[in-house]
């Protein structure tokens, strides 16, 4: 795997409000290339909202988020896409097969991937020709992570990637993260199970 030159994710004095309620303020951190940040916190603390803000899908109520000196809300406007985001929604079409979902994701990103090898790795080799709506929640999550894996992005934003995954699946996510960080990529992971990714985080954000 080739080395990618990741940029720095700079989160400056970010305040996030949902509706009228302020969830947190004054969040500051710099995530350099090759680093992992773990976001933890109780339900309702604003993990998902933070992840969506980091992806540029919404603006923080104060402060700024930039990646490589460009505000993320600007990056998301379709120029280049160094950021891959996996929210708690799978982003799969239920009426398409796993293979069709993977192929579309790859086409959208111009990514190259060996579909069969990826399916083997995910343990989905028997499900490639099945429509997503016939899969279990864990298999769907695996397929969604497979779509994410096909994206040639330098920054991964994963919101609860371990939900519904079995031990082997969680191990796979950890291995992918290790390889990604090794290549010079960076990642922000929001999770309730930080112990499964223990020892990797350069930055821990507790909301």
């Amino acid at each position, binding site marked *: 795997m080739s080395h990618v030159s990741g940029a720095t994710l700079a989160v400056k004095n970010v305040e996030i409000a949902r509706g009228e309620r302020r969830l947190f303020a004054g969040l500051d951190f710099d995530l350099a290339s090759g680093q992992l940040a773990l976001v933890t916190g109780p339900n309702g603390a604003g993990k998902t909202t933070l992840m969506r803000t980091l992806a540029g899908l*919404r603006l923080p109520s104060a402060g700024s988020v930039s990646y490589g000196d460009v505000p993320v809300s600007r990056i998301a406007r*379709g120029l280049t896409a160094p950021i891959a985001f996996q*929210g708690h*929604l799978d982003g799969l079409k*239920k009426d*398409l097969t796993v293979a069709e979902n993977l192929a579309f994701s790859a*086409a959208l990103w111009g990514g190259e991937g060996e579909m069969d090898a990826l399916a083997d790795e995910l343990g989905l080799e028997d499900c490639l020709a099945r429509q997503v709506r016939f899969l279990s929640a864990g298999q769907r999550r695996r397929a969604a992570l497979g779509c994410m894996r096909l994206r040639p992005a330098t920054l991964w934003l994963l919101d609860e990637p371990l939900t519904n995954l079995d031990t082997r699946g969680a191990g796979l996510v950890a291995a992918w993260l290790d390889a990604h960080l090794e290549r010079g990529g960076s990642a922000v992971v929001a999770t309730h199970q930080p112990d499964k990714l223990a020892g990797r985080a350069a930055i821990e954000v507790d909301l």
Partner: protein
Amino acid sequence: MSVFTSMLERDLRLAMRRWSEFATPLIFFVIISSLFPFALSPEVAALRAAGTGVLWIAALLSSLLALDGLFRTDMDDGSMEQLILSPASLGLLVFAKICAHWLVSGLPLILIAPVLALSFYLPPESLPTLMFALLLATPTLSALAAIGAALTVGLRSGGTLIGLLVLPLTAPVLIFGTRATDMAVHGESALGPLYLLGALAAFSLSLAPLASAAAIRVSVE
């Protein structure tokens, strides 16, 4: 351009797998237009006078009905987030979605319209003009409805709101569409209104994807 074809192919494939959902607006169009001859006076002149208007209003309503789900399913399953964050231009993706939707809902409507026109005793020689006018008008209707669908996709029940937002904007299409058909029925050349329909299609198809993309970005927040 491969992103455009991938998106088009994906949406067409989805439409094939859920064809009953996509057939509903077309069936609506057929039923509305074929109920009118029963309700109106059976005289040829009366039917002919009402026929063009009925056909156009039915086409208008059915294309609005069809567009409600255009972005909603993508929004609900999280695909929209991925489309927004992908390196492809969202405007282009939206354009592909509009095209796919038009192929599934607009094109069959154009093909079936002549059959319904005969139930209003429209003269057969006016049918090519009717079809050509619909060919120019339905993309405009789809494009306008896409803006409405994009604006209301974040709301719980956007369906009726789309109508309120979009129907006033469709007035020019209705005016020139019925005018073109009327002129053809009376044996005149309908080129004038057809040119205007073409201009409306070019205008709305070039700007609506951009407007819809901007509206989606606001809705996704």
